[in-house]
C-alpha cells in the first residue's frame, strides 16, 4: 500500500517527478493567488466614489471632495487600516463595530482593523512597534494619552491641528466637547494628535454597603486629604481584613497622578523628571502613612482591588470609568463615586484615547474622515455601556439613563468645572519612566528605603529628556 501511494502505477521515475513538480508549482500558484486576493484589500469592480468627505488640511474652502480624491486606490474602493489594542473582552467587537459603522456610511471604503494583543498600553506600544517594524503601514492607530509624546518624538503620527482648524464639520463637534478633554490630550508642543473619542478622569469609588455597615457618612465632593484619611480610618479593621483605601501596584495614572495633581506638582516639567520635589515628598509620605497605619493594604493589581471592593474588604479606590463593566457583570451595584480629595488645589486627572493618523499613511485625508467619524453622535451613542464618550450631549443622555453609580454625571461635570492636570506625565519612553517610578515606590512602600532616599534614587535614575 505504501509503495502504491509513493509510486502510482504506470509512472516512470522521470514522469513521476515531473508530475510532482507540476502539482507543487500548481499548489504554490494557488497559495500565491489566495494570498494576493486576501492581501489586496479591495474587492469587486472599481466604482466611482460619491461619498462626500472633507477638504484637505490647510484648505479652508470647505468644499467637499470624494473618497477617491482623498487617497486610496485612486479610482476604485479605498482601504483603510487601523491598529487597535486587543485587551480581550469587547475590544475586538468595538473595533469591528467602528469599522462597520464607517463602512455603512462610506460604502466605497473598506476598513480593516488590525488587532494587536496587549494587556496594558505599555505592551500595546511594544507590540505595535514590532508590528510596524515588521512592515505593516496602517493608516491609523488607536492610542491613549500616554502615547502622544512617543508618537510625536518618533514622528509616527501627524498633528491633526490643521484638520481641526479647517474642517467645517469640526465647529459643531468642538462645541460639544468639554475644553478640558481636549486639554488633557494635547501634546507638550501644543498640537493635537487625535480627537478623543473616549476618555477617563480619576474619581474615588466607594462601597456604599461598607459605609453603611461601618456607620460612616458618604463623602462629600469637596472633602480634603485629612477628611479622606479619617473616613478611610473609620472603615479600616486590619485584624479582620478590612481596609479603607487601596491602590494599584503599577500605573502612574491611577497610583500617583491624582494625588500629585492636587498638590499642584507634577512628575515631569516639560520632559525633565521632577520626582524629588516637596510635592512628591508630601504625596509619598501620605501614602506610606496610610500603609503604616493599617488604613491601606499593600498595593495590589487592579483586578484584585475590584474583587476586594465587591467583597467589602476594600472600601475605596480610585479609577476612571473602566471598573463599571467589571461590576456590572455580577450585578454589583453597592457603590457610588465622588471627587478625588482636594489638596492645596484641585485638578481633574484625565486621559483620553482616539485615532491618530500615521505618518506613513498615503491617504491621510481619508484617515481623518475616519478619526472624525468616531466622534459623531451616532458613533458615540453606540459605545459600550459604561464606556466614556467625548460629546457632552451624548454623555448627559447616558448619565441620565444610568442608575448606578448615582453620581455618574460627576465624570463629565468635573471636567467642565475644574482645570485638567496638564501636561499629563507622558514622556516619550513612558514604560521606562513608569518602570523606574514603580521600582522605587515598591522599595519605599515595602519599608526598605526611606521616602527621602527612595525619591532621590528615583530622580537620579529617571531618563526623560534625550
Amino acid at each position, binding site marked *: 500500500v505504501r*509503495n502504491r501511494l*509513493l*509510486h502510482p502505477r504506470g509512472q516512470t521515475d522521470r514522469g513521476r517527478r515531473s508530475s510532482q513538480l507540476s502539482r507543487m508549482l500548481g499548489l504554490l500558484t494557488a497559495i500565491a493567488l489566495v494570498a494576493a486576493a486576501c492581501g489586496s484589500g479591495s474587492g469587486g469592480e472599481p466604482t466611482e466614489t460619491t461619498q462626500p468627505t472633507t477638504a484637505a488640511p490647510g484648505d479652508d474652502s470647505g468644499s467637499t471632495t470624494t473618497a477617491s480624491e482623498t487617497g486610496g486606490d485612486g479610482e476604485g474602493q479605498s482601504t483603510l487600516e487601523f491598529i487597535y489594542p486587543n485587551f480581550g473582552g469587547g475590544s475586538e467587537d468595538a473595533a469591528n463595530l467602528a469599522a462597520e459603522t464607517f463602512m455603512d456610511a462610506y460604502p466605497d471604503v473598506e476598513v480593516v482593523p488590525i488587532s494587536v494583543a496587549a494587556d496594558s498600553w*505599555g*505592551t500595546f506600544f*511594544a*507590540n505595535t*512597534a*514590532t508590528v*510596524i*517594524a515588521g512592515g505593516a503601514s496602517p493608516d491609523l492607530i488607536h492610542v491613549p494619552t500616554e502615547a502622544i509624546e512617543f508618537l510625536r518624538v*518618533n514622528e*509616527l503620527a501627524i498633528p491633526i491641528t490643521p484638520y481641526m482648524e479647517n474642517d467645517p464639520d469640526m465647529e459643531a463637534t468642538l462645541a460639544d466637547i468639554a475644553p478640558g478633554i481636549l486639554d488633557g490630550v494635547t501634546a507638550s508642543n501644543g498640537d493635537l494628535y487625535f480627537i478623543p473619542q473616549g476618555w477617563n478622569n480619576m474619581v474615588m469609588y466607594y462601597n456604599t454597603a461598607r459605609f453603611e455597615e461601618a456607620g460612616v457618612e458618604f463623602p462629600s465632593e469637596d472633602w480634603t486629604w485629612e477628611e479622606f484619611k479619617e473616613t478611610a480610618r473609620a472603615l479600616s479593621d*486590619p485584624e479582620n*481584613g478590612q*481596609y479603607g483605601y487601596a491602590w494599584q*501596584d*503599577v500605573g502612574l495614572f491611577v497610583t500617583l497622578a491624582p494625588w500629585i495633581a492636587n498638590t499642584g506638582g507634577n512628575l515631569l516639567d516639560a520632559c525633565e523628571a521632577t520626582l524629588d520635589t516637596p510635592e512628591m515628598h508630601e504625596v509619598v509620605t501620605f501614602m506610606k502613612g496610610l500603609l503604616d497605619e493599617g488604613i491601606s*493594604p*499593600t*498595593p*495590589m*493589581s487592579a*483586578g*484584585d482591588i475590584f*474583587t*476586594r471592593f465587591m467583597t467589602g*474588604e476594600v472600601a475605596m479606590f480610585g479609577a476612571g470609568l473602566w471598573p463599571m463593566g467589571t461590576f456590572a457583570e455580577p450585578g454589583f451595584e453597592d457603590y457610588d463615586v465622588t471627587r478625588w480629595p482636594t489638596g492645596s488645589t484641585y485638578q481633574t486627572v484625565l486621559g483620553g484615547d482616539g485615532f491618530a493618523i500615521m505618518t506613513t499613511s498615503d491617504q491621510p485625508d481619508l484617515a481623518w474622515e475616519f478619526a472624525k467619524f468616531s466622534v459623531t453622535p451616532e458613533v458615540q451613542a453606540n459605545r459600550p455601556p459604561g464606556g466614556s464618550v467625548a460629546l457632552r450631549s451624548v454623555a448627559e443622555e447616558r448619565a441620565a439613563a444610568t442608575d448606578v453609580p448615582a453620581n455618574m454625571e460627576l465624570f463629565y461635570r468635573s471636567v467642565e468645572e475644574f482645570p485638567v492636570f496638564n501636561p499629563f506625565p507622558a514622556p516619550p*519612553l513612558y*514604560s*521606562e519612566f513608569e*518602570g523606574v517610578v*514603580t*521600582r*522605587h515606590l*515598591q*522599595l519605599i*512602600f*515595602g519599608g*526598605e528605603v526611606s521616602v527621602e532616599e527612595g525619591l532621590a534614587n528615583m530622580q537620579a535614575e529617571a531618563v526623560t529628556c534625550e
Partner: protein
Amino acid sequence: LTSTKSRKASGAGWAATLPPDASTQPPGQRRWDRAAIGFLAPSGIGFLLFVIFPAVMVFGLSAVEWNLLSPARFVGWDNYLRAFSDSRLLAVYRSTALMAGGFVVLNVGLALLLAVFLETRMPRWLSSFFRMTFIFPFVVSATAVAMIWRFMLHQDLGLVNFYLGGFGVDKINWLGSSFWAPISVVIAATWRSIGFSILIFIAGLQAIPQDVREAAMVDGANAWTRFWRITLPLLSPTVLFLVIVNTLGAFQLFAEPVVLTSGGPGDASRTVVQFMYNTGFGSFQMGYASAQAVLLLAVLVVLTFLQFRLSKRWTFYG
C-alpha cells in the same frame, strides 16, 4: 555518545551512514530517504524558521542600535561593553542565580521525594491519582498560576497569611519584601513545574531493575540503604537531566516574576529574561536587549558544560 565515538574510531564518522554515491543506493533505500526527509521537513523547517533564523538575527542585532522605528546604526561591540558595565544587569543576574538555585534544589529535591513516595509507598490507584494531580499545574498557563498565587500571597488579604496567622505567625510580606519576593517566585514556579520532574523521576524509578533491589534485600539492606546505595546512584542520570533542564528553565522564568512581583521590590525578583524584555520592549533598545540575549546564551552554555563536566563525579550509568 558511545556510538558516535565508535563511528569516529572506525574513521568514517556520520558519513559512514550515508552511501558514497546515491546512484549506487538501492531504489528502495532512496524512497525511504525521501520519505524520511518529508517527515522531518515540518519540524526541520519550523526549527530553522523559529529557532536558527531568530538566533542568527539576534547576533546581528546585538551589534546595532535600533529602536524598532528608526534605521539601525552599527555600533560594533558597544552593546556588550555596556552590558559588562551595567550594574543593574549584574544585580539582576545575582537575583536570577539565587532564584535559579532555590528553584532547582526545591524542584529536584522535592520531586525525588514525592516520586519515591508515590512509587514505593502508595497503592497503585492512589498513586495514579496523585501523579495526575501533580502534573495538572504544569499544563495550566504560567500566568494563570501566578495570578492565583498573587491573590493568595497578598500580605494583608491573602489566604496564606490568614492561615499562618492561625498558628501565631506574623504577616509575611511575600510579594513586597526583598527577602520574601524571590522566595515567592520560587514557590510559585516550583508548584507549577514539579509535576514534570516527578513524572521523569517515576520513569527513572520504573527503569531500575527489580532484581537489583531484591538482591539488596536478600543481602539485608534496609529501605534507607537501598535508597542511597541502589536507587539514587541508578537515578543519577535522571537527576542530571532534571538539574540541567530546570536550571535552563529557571534562568528563563518570566511569567511568575512579572505577574507576582513585577520583578520587585527594586530588582529583587527580576530575572534576566524579564530585564531583557524591559530593555527591548519597554525602552525600545533592541540592540542592547539582543546583546543581553547573546550573553545569557553564553552563560547557559557555560553552565551546562560545567554541569556535564562535574556530573562525571557523581553520575552512574550502570
